[in-house]
């Protein structure tokens, strides 16, 4: 009823004699940057998940010579305590990627719920939610994350909560803007007149059609969340000092960079490659889902 009728590829198949490639695959193959990004991300995730098997050494083992440059034994060198940098960077991927995904997932759930409720019901609920969102909108996400860590204190779960809260407004704004447009469409009216409940209308009829820009925003947000976690950890406001994370490895190595450049370079390269790959892939998703602007202009509220 609400689902669009899928376009049949039968005629094309009849002519070509084989099943044509789906659109997403065609676009992905044509977009070289996105393909590279996807491959890098898959490798990163595998390395993070399989860290105990992939890493050449225990990331906390101080068994090696201190501050040795890259060599065949230690591809990325060793740190001031004689730990293998490559192993620490691989283990660091676990925290960075986990924080990136966990924060965005929680931020998206809460933010979208706020935006959908505000857009669907309007009235005082909309006013209260949007006042808060506007307040948060006036400040950069990273600064809000710093403020919140100042209140909650450091530590992994607090960092996740702080970054997730800091990113709320992006999702709420987009969701609200989409709902305002969609709820006026004829099919929603039809479903309502058939007696669908508010909850059913929101979850089954409106939200699925509002997903495209939210998915694009989520991808972009994962890269910002990874950067934010690295920044917080670097400042000493992140995870516990013993956990290897990219930001913390950089922070630990900072005092030695004049003698041991690799401590200052490689963890940052890991961050950059990851974020770059996500950005490449996000750009592809934007083309695929045909989302033009995910930020202010579309979701500013007067999109009707």
């Amino acid at each position, binding site marked *: 009823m609400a689902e669009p009728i899928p376009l049949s590829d039968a005629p094309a198949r009849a002519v070509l004699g084989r099943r044509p490639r789906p659109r997403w695959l065609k676009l992905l193959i044509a977009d070289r940057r996105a393909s590279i990004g996807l491959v890098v991300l898959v490798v990163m995730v595998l390395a993070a998940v399989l860290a105990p098997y992939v890493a050449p050494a225990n990331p906390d083992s101080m068994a090696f010579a201190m501050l040795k440059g890259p060599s065949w034994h230690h591809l990325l060198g060793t740190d001031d305590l004689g730990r293998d940098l490559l192993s620490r960077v691989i283990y660091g991927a676990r925290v960075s990627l986990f924080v990136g995904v966990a924060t965005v997932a929680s931020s998206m759930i809460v933010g979208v719920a706020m935006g959908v409720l505000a857009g669907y019901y309007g009235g005082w609920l909309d006013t209260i939610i949007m006042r808060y969102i506007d307040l948060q909108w006036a400040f950069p996400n990273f*600064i809000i994350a710093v403020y919140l860590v*100042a209140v909650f204190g450091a530590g992994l779960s607090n960092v996740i909560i702080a970054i997730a809260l800091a990113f709320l407004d992006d999702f709420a704004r987009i969701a609200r803007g989409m709902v305002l447009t969609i709820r006026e469409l004829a099919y929603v009216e039809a479903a309502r007149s058939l007696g669908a409940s508010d909850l059913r209308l929101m979850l089954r009829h409106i939200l699925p059609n509002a997903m495209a820009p939210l998915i694009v925003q989520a991808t972009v947000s994962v890269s910002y969340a990874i950067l934010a976690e690295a*920044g917080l950890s670097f*400042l000493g406001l992140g995870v516990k000092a013993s956990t290897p994370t990219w930001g913390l490895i950089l922070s630990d190595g900072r005092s030695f960079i004049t003698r041991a450049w690799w401590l*200052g370079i490689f*963890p*940052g390269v890991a961050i950059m490659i990851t*974020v770059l790959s996500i950005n490449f892939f996000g750009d592809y998703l934007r083309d695929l889902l045909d989302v033009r602007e995910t930020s202010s202009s579309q979701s500013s509220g007067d999109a009707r």
Partner: protein
Amino acid sequence: MTSYLVKRVLAAIVVMWAVATLVFFMLRAVPGDPVQAMLFDTADAHAVAVLRHKYGLDRPVYVQYGLWLWNIGHGDFGASIYGSREPVEQIISQALPRTMSLALLAFVIAMGIAVPAGIVSAVRKNTPLDHGFTLAAFLGLSMPDFWLGIVLIIIFAAHLRWLPAIGYAPPSEGLVPWFKHLILPATAIGTAFSAILARMIRSSMLEVLSADFITVARSKGLVERSVVMKHAFRNALIPVVTVTGIAFALLMAGAVVVENVFAIKGLGRVLIQGILNRDYPVVQGAILVVSAIFVLTNLVVDVLYTFIDPRIRLR
């Protein structure tokens, strides 16, 4: 026009009040007693009670809140409770020029990169040069600014020994040392923003270049340089002006981290050190001042924009 201005100023005041209130109540909702922290958790009950009374912490919360609002309204942010016991206003007024210098230089660097890159990308659309700038913009957006700072230190301070690695020199000690201390951190902060700005200028230029008045300018035989710079670029800048608010926000956020890489005692370092030392008066003061800068910038940009685009104030 006046009513629009009044409305915007009132809204800005309300935002500041909301931030102040949130900061006050959130910091008091945290577990952990600042007085205990001041006395390094070693004090006896009597000393704690004396200090609580001295700072008014034994009064009801709404009285504390009222007094606090009254005080910050008069520029009195209290004193640091860690180490020096210096007044917060003094700490902040020393830090502010450093952060401002940094943000200003970062803005100049960002514009210096973004304007030529954006124009060239638009005029030479889809050439290898344009693709190169696109890739560079992606890279700029994907680098953590603090890491770029570390890389710059490794190259220009540790290996080439051209520039100092850390610290700050006030302009009163000469502009050259001031510039030498700030150029690396400012580049670290400005790079990511130059990427955003270059992309904006590019798409804005592309839009303007296909407009009718550009065709007219070309067909009356104007030199291409004059068409691009005088006719197109000026109009392409209008949407860019709105971004300056966001620009400033981004540069400040960058400064918070990057000041800590370069040991520049600006607002960012004051804020982070305050958090690490649980120095609540300093944290409150720094948050309020940083927030006030954002609110003020947004206000100025909004007002400026009404002069550029009269449609706004008529809405």
